[in-house]
């Protein structure tokens, strides 16, 4: 395992220090408990939006804190959900009296820790609503299991809810938008290589030089299936088929598409993947009206990509085009 780090146990805090130094006009970083918060938080009368999760997915979530997106992000240790004390402190720091939305990715740990945090905050009279994101079609959904993982849609939901909150919509409305986005979005990921958790010191899984994992999550978990490496066209075909047939997306739909890099895949390949995705969508009469192409929800240095499609409408498009100014996502400002 080769990484640009000092001691594994210092990676998260030293990386946070770099963010604080680089983006002081946008964000402030609080240590123990660790959270990243908008420089001008709390904003009176605005719904606060808090998300969080294990580290190693950068720029999500810390790089998405700022005007028009998140008010705070709670980074856990690498691939380990943050703890209730972080979420409680972040929630209090962004509470402007209009309540706070917790955007939670559906992982047992994240869900339980955010639950505990919400209980603590509500006990102190803070109006907290939580929406759990579960968009990963690679996982069979079922009432009896942990259900689907929250992946790419999280990024889009944070942008869209952030825009709605910026417009001073109330907590119920912002939470409704989050649920709508989650209900109309689907994702799937794949990996060419594993990643190595710094403290573990070696790759989470071994994979052959001619193999790939289809249906991976964002924590180096093995995927649903190991298969021989295929061409980008075949890979995008498989992934987009799984995504499109699941909602299902239909001819005439307008979508926001994200081609996301897992951290170790170069941009030249991601644009090629977007080209293939665009061809598939054109063939099915699905119109990509907006897109994100790059590393947004990553898995350390893993090579691979994920595809996310969100069925959209005029209201969502307006929210998408609204100004955003965060370390990782910026337009109109």
């Amino acid at each position: 395992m080769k990484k640009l780090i000092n001691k594994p146990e210092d990676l998260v805090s030293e990386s946070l220090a770099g963010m604080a130094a680089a983006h002081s006009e946008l964000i402030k970083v609080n240590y123990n408990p660790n959270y990243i918060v908008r420089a001008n938080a709390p904003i009176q009368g605005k719904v606060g939006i808090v998300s969080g999760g294990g580290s190693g997915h950068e720029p999500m979530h810390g790089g998405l804190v700022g005007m028009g997106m998140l008010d705070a992000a709670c980074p856990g240790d690498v691939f380990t959900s943050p703890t209730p004390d972080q979420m409680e402190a972040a929630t209090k720091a962004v509470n402007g009296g209009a309540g706070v939305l917790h955007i939670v990715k559906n992982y047992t740990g994240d869900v339980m820790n955010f639950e505990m945090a919400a209980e603590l905050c509500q006990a102190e009279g803070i109006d907290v609503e939580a929406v759990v994101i579960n968009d990963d079609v690679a996982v069979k959904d079922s009432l009896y299991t942990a259900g689907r993982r929250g992946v790419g849609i999280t990024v889009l939901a944070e942008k869209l809810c952030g825009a709605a909150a910026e417009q001073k919509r109330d907590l119920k409305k912002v939470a409704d938008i989050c649920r709508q986005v989650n209900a109309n979005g689907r994702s799937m990921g794949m990996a060419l290589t594993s990643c190595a958790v710094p403290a573990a010191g070696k790759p989470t899984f071994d994979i052959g030089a001619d193999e790939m994992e289809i249906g991976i999550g964002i924590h180096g978990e093995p995927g649903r299936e190991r298969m021989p490496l295929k061409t980008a066209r075949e890979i995008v075909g498989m992934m987009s088929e799984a995504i499109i047939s699941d909602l299902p997306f239909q001819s005439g739909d307008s979508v926001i598409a994200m081609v996301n890099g897992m951290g170790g895949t170069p941009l030249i390949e991601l644009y090629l993947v977007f080209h293939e995705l665009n061809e598939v969508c054109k063939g099915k009469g699905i119109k990509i009206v907006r897109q994100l192409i790059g590393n947004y929800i990553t898995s350390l240095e893993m090579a691979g990509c994920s595809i996310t499609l969100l069925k959209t409408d005029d209201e969502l498009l307006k929210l998408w085009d609204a100004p955003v100014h965060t370390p990782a996502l910026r337009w109109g400002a």
Partner: protein
Amino acid sequence: MLQKVYAENKTYLTELDSAIGDADHGINMDRGFTNVCADLSKTDAPDISALLKTVAMTLIRTVGGAAGPLYGTFFLRASTACAGKTELQAADLVAMFEAGLAGVLQRGKAELNDKTMVDALNPALAAMKQALGNGSDVKQIMQQGAAAAEEGMKNTIPMLAKKGRASYLGERSIGHQDPGATSSYLLLKTAVDVWG
């Protein structure tokens, strides 16, 4: 003591978690109990209940992941269950364990055979209750519990995971021992050595 055990088993648990999870369970447990040690040495708790509460809060604050809230809740409920007590009878111990497990079930909503720590904790409780009924002493009760937990842990190997990260693997989760069930067994095993 527990800290030492989890420090020793850090890699073991993490490797179990690499197979069907995200390779951090050992790291999380080690971090948690290292902090528990530190915090306990700082605070001198008036009674067992207060001591267990410190353990619970520290675990909740420092373990993270799924294990943090679960073990945290376990010790929190155990703490409440022995509130006010200055010394523990065998019956108290079993009652505390029962309360702890109830907390884990409530928080995690896992059922038996979902391939989680519950599959170690649940048989352990059953065995402890039985031993208590047979009038065994604390040490025997813990031994019975640990033995049952070990068996329960081993039984997770053929299970198909329905809860936690391992459930994402579907069929591929079969054939691997559950990390959390393993850390639960270690918890009991250590308790035996302590109370022994």
